[in-house]
């Protein structure tokens, strides 16, 4: 994991949650985040911080800010069905796999059952999302809410742990 790849992930997330907003609003957020990520990486490298730690720091900032991103998105422009569906179908499984698998592997290697449990919960949430489209619409809503909470908690926990231990 490199800082640049993590920054790309953040930029993809920003482009996702700014979809269907007026272009001026969306472009401002995308460009401002691009500048922030560039400054973050440049500043940390100048301090001699390792690439892995920079990457986890960026990931942690993104994960901790997810609720605020969603809140901001809902305030500046109502989420339409298509956007919500993309949130569930694209972002959550990607994050689930990216964070869940390393969490389980690292937890095993480091004899850390808590981290393994987080990884398992994360993977379980991701699998639940995989089955959501096959479920009835009512179950899909419940699945989205529960899965989102599980994934968010797992991402915040794992990213924070990694940030503080690397």
């Amino acid at each position, binding site marked *: 994991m490199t800082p640049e790849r993590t920054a790309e992930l*953040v930029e993809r997330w920003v482009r996702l949650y700014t979809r269907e907003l007026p272009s001026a609003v969306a472009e*401002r*957020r995308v*460009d*401002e*985040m*691009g*500048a*922030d990520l*560039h*400054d*973050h990486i*440049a*500043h940390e490298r100048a301090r001699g911080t390792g690439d892995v730690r920079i990457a986890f*720091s960026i990931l*942690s*900032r*993104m*994960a*901790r*800010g*997810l*609720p*605020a*991103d*969603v*809140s*901001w998105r809902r305030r500046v422009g109502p989420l339409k069905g298509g956007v919500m569906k993309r949130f569930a179908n694209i972002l959550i499984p990607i994050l689930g796999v990216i964070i869940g698998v390393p969490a389980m592997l690292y937890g095993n290697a480091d004899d850390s059952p808590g981290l393994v449990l987080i990884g398992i919960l994360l993977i379980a949430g991701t699998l639940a999302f995989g089955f959501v489209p096959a479920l009835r619409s009512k179950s899909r809503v419940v699945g989205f809410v529960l899965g989102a909470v599980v994934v968010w908690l797992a991402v915040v926990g794992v990213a*924070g742990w990694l*940030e*503080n231990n690397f």
Partner: protein
Amino acid sequence: MPPRKPGTLLPLETEILQIALAMLRAGHATFHGFGLAHTMREQQGSRSLTAHGTLYKALGRLEEFGLLTSRWEDAATAEGRPRRRLYELTSQGANVAERALPDRAAGPLPRPASKPA
């Protein structure tokens, strides 16, 4: 982040105004998102930078309240890196920040009404 009481600023928003005022007094009229996050981390002695979503949502709200203004950095100044969004304290924001320290001890700081869209 604690819930917002109607008509008040959140602690993070007050902190941003205070840092902006300190920067202004130090001769730095403008600041940008990452610089602000870095300054807050230094002041708090924290290991983590403020989250992206939290930071830019707070900056946006302060701009809506008329306490900050923002503009894009000149391309020439950027020298090849992505242009930063530069924020500046308004006179109203400076007044609110001036009152922030004594008022924070007494509770959440009242905020002015939002600017019309």
